[in-house]
């Protein structure tokens, strides 16, 4: 009998610790499938963040290192400079990438560091139990914005792809979501394109993935997926923000 679908070799058999309805599992699978389908799983070195995905080193079936909070792009830089022919990726959340690690993110991007960042934006700190993230939406209630995020007091959410797309070192930047099947298929294509940009030594690539956190949003999984459509995508429009892979350099 022909096999039509099987678990990717890019993931280990370890059971993940993610909450029910969390979309980290989907994103892990997409990254792993892309590494396998591109034939680079044996060359891959991944960098796990601090945050919900801290134990990603147990889930990806490739060499992995766990970085200090926010420092994954710097750690990836060190790896890539020593081993330019390996495929090096980081997997980071919004607090890790856009708060404590902003400098590492921006500077690895502007150096055109030939690495791929998978940026999981769920608009909240998950691991520590639901505090305001740099990407928490205006008015969004979290443990540390109990009256809703007041932009006059706490400032505005960061649009990472828009910001990074202004930097000359960035080869590819796309924002995707994983809240329905068509979006998941687009997300996979984006991740594959980002990794391909790295394999072809085009420079820095990032895929921002809008992701659900039903536990800390206080929603059912279904409500969380709908919230991505209703609230997140309007503030964080999906699409390609930078692509020098085919049409030459343009902002």
């Amino acid at each position, binding site marked *: 009998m022909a096999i039509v679908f099987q678990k990717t070799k890019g993931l280990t058999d370890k059971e993940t610790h993610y909450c029910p309805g969390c979309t980290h599992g989907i994103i892990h699978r997409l990254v792993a499938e892309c590494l396998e389908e591109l034939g680079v799983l044996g060359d891959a070195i991944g960098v796990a963040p601090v945050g919900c995905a801290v134990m990603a080193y147990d889930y990806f079936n490739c060499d992995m290192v766990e970085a200090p909070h926010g*420092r994954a792009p*710097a750690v990836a830089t*060190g790896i890539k400079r020593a081993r330019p022919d*390996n495929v090096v990726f980081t997997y980071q959340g919004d607090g890790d990438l856009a708060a404590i690690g902003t400098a590492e993110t921006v500077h690895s991007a502007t150096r055109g560091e030939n690495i791929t960042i998978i940026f999981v934006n769920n608009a909240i700190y998950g691991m520590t139990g639901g505090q305001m993230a740099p990407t928490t939406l205006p008015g969004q209630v979290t443990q540390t914005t109990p009256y809703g995020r007041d932009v006059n007091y706490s400032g505005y959410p960061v649009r990472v792809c828009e910001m990074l797309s202004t930097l000359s070192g960035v080869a590819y930047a796309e924002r995707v979501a994983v809240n329905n099947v068509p979006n998941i298929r687009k997300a996979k294509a984006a991740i594959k394109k980002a990794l391909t940009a790295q394999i072809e030594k085009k420079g820095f690539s990032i895929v921002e993935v809008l992701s659900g956190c039903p536990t800390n949003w206080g929603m059912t999984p279904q409500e969380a997926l709908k919230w991505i459509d209703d609230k997140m995508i309007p503030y964080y429009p999906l699409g390609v923000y930078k692509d020098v892979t085919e049409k030459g350099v343009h902002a």
Partner: protein
Amino acid sequence: MGEKFLMKGNEALAEAAIRNGCKHFFGYPITPQTEVAAYMAKRMPKIGGTYLQAESEIAAINMVLGCASTGARAMTSSSSPGISLKGEGISYIIGSDLPCLIINVMRGGPGLGGIQPSQADYWQATKAPGHGDGQVLVFAPSSVQEIVNLIGQAFDLAETYRMPAMILADGMLGQMMEPVEFPEVVPTPHEKPWALTGTKGQRKPNIVNSLYLQPQELERTIIERQKRYDIIREKEVQVELQYMDDAEFAVVAYGATARVVKSAVSKARAKGIKVGLIRPITLWPFPEKEIAAAAKQVKAMLTVEMSMGQMVEDVRLAANGACPVGFFGRTGGIVPSPAEVLAEIEKMAGGAK
């Protein structure tokens, strides 16, 4: 071997690192160590190596972490305020059991402090280079030649024991020029089965990590590391003893300060005071046994530092009450003068003779 070069401490240090197989340097400019970075920027491209100016000290040490995790020899260099920033990364490197080399060309602190020589980071280097239970190997050269000689050892021991090594120099050593020879390097091969190189589908993934959520597991890894530390304390201590055979008094000093003390000790000897010098070359592991033995031999000891008194605590612990241990220090970027130290030696010996 044999050819002598007149070099600044910082440049000799960089050249020695390259000759010992370091091909990856990550740094950030800070006085008084910037010549290390400048030298690396010039030399690394010519040998196919990496010189990368990071966006911060924090990024630089994390680039070292990543680079070291692939098994490559990696280093960073900074001065006191920059080393404070590296503390997080150093702790992770310790926790991940990775070898690397860190240079601290110390300047005065706290805060932005000053840019003149200091030894006020002794506690930071030997007691708490980062959070958690952990140590780094700490070498304290007192000449440009000794910097060169210790770099190779530092890399080798870091790889043998899978931990960071630090060269704790100061602004004086970094900036002074002296003739140096570069010894022939015989590289010691180190197997690195833990290195991240890609599985090539041939082996299980390697994981470099410092997270252990089960306390029993975390305690086990720390105890395993402590066992290595015990071996290091036993085997890797280096100390220079001068005029100690018949000494009735001893001065303990390291680094550039030890040069000043040497000169004061010679002058005291010329005056008939039987005083010797104990110069720790490794600050961690600390020469406890040698100091304990000396404490039983001499009537009194004096510790001289460019700080308000940091190493003196370790000297007192090692002496364990066997003799009084006095302290003399200048700080904030001031180097003690031989005359000042001589006066202290005379005081210790019971007044000028």
